[in-house]
């Protein structure tokens, strides 16, 4: 794995921010995830450490006493430069159903007009690409998915909507994603996913992790309704493909 030049900075008294070169890049994300895996397994094993990777950074948060920054920075540099041998967490490609009916895809007509594409072309483009989870935030279980084809890049709506329904699948800039709950939001909504992205009743409330991949496939309204019911009663079976490390 190639080593990057990383910056290590304090983030308040209890956290440290590590930043990789400032760009959205899967190789950088892989390097970050490999290093955080090493930190979790070998260096920062205590559950008092919270580790939050996102895009080109990872933030390490310690719940106890303040961090001695200078000492810790040296340690981190050394750890990063060690020949890291960890077994990467199994990466997963999640296949998620989306219903692109106009009832759900309330911005489909507008973006079709703006881009000169048909709705069918937009759906076919959105479902033919595999996306990478670069971060989870904004809301519990809200995944920032990168890898969108340029032709599907649309600016956020000028006025955010006060209410976007749960499951809405949206486009914003270079990203696509799913609203895990009802929320205000400014993304362009093109469909709805019946699978809940965040379920606090589960021991692992969000099945997706940073570094995983997601691919959408189009379903009819009837299939959508079926998956919705299956999810509600807890018998929906997630479709996943295990990826080689």
């Amino acid at each position, binding site marked *: 794995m190639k080593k990057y030049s990383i910056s290590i900075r304090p983030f308040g008294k209890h956290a440290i921010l590590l930043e990789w070169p400032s760009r959205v890049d899967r190789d950088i994300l892989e390097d970050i995830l490999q290093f955080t895996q090493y930190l979790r397994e070998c260096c920062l094993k205590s559950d008092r450490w919270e580790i*939050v990777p996102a895009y080109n950074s990872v*933030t390490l948060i310690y719940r106890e006493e303040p961090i001695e920054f200078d000492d810790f920075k040296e340690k981190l540099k050394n750890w990063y430069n060690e020949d890291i041998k960890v077994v990467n967490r199994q990466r997963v490609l999640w296949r998620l159903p989306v219903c692109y009916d106009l009832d759900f895809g309330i911005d489909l007509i507008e973006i079709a007009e703006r881009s000169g594409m048909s709705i069918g072309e937009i759906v076919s483009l959105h479902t033919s690409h595999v996306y990478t989870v670069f971060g989870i*935030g904004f*809301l519990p279980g809200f995944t920032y998915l990168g890898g969108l084809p340029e032709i599907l890049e649309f600016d956020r709506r000028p006025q955010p909507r006060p209410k976007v329904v749960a499951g809405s699948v949206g486009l914003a800039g270079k990203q696509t994603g799913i609203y895990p709950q009802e929320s205000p939001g400014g993304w362009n909504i093109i469909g709805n996913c019946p699978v809940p992205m*965040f379920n606090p009743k589960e021991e692992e409330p*969000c099945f997706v992790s940073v570094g995983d991949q997601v691919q959408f496939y189009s379903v009819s309204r009837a299939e959508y309704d079926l998956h919705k019911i299956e999810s509600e009663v807890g018998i929906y079976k997630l479709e996943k493909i295990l990826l080689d490390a």
Partner: protein
Amino acid sequence: MLKILKSGLFTTLQDMGRYGFLDKGVPVAGCMDSFSAKKINQLLENDSAVAVLEITMTGPTLLFEEATYVAIGGALLSATLNNEPVANYEVIKVSGGDILSFGKLEKGFRCYLAIKGGFKTPLVLGSRSLFSSVTKKNHLVDGEELPYGASPDFKPKISKLKVDSFLDEQVLTVSKGPEYDSLSDKQLEMLFYKAFSIANENNRMAYQLEEKIIGIKTSMITSATLPGTVQLTPSGKLIILMKDGQTTGGYPRVLQLSDRAISVLAQKKYGDEVRFQLN
């Protein structure tokens, strides 16, 4: 059971927060003014992590069904037990049938009520803190009941605590945030040489400040945020994330509040003034 006869403006159940799911976008939540909450748990010889009531501005009316001991701290909210005034930071013995209520807000914004042994609601993802996305609702409602263990035989080692109150403090001690170095001299001057007043938009997620400074136009790749992170928007608005704040953000993080400053700020309400001091 503790019966919530009237819930007040915004009364919530909080502990020291929900950890282990920050990387899944779940905010820490927990007591906004954790210093005051910890003090009253200490007074009752509770573990500091047990759940307490967080009472905002207008207090609830509470009926105790079993005898126990409680303590109140944080904001001064004219508390009375069966219509007799009770003081903050004192162990209060309550009997079954007693009614605790609150009156005029004298000072501060958030008042805490701890009970011997803590409230025994179910843990959700390791915490009892109410947060809508996880626990469906974020505050208590009229008629709701909270379980607690009866503790008639508790013999408190200390009956009251002398607490250095920070309710009058205006200074928020901060350290440099990750994007501090992108601030210009003019922006720094605006940040540190004048007071800011708390905007109407203030809640458990974030406190916005009324006065703007010069904004930062450059966009930033989404990265982690923490309770106490001060974000500067392109329009120059300062937003201080609090305990229910989002776990990632795309605005420059110019300052980071100390733990104590988060508690100091949690006691501020609309119109109150604060100033930043670099530590």
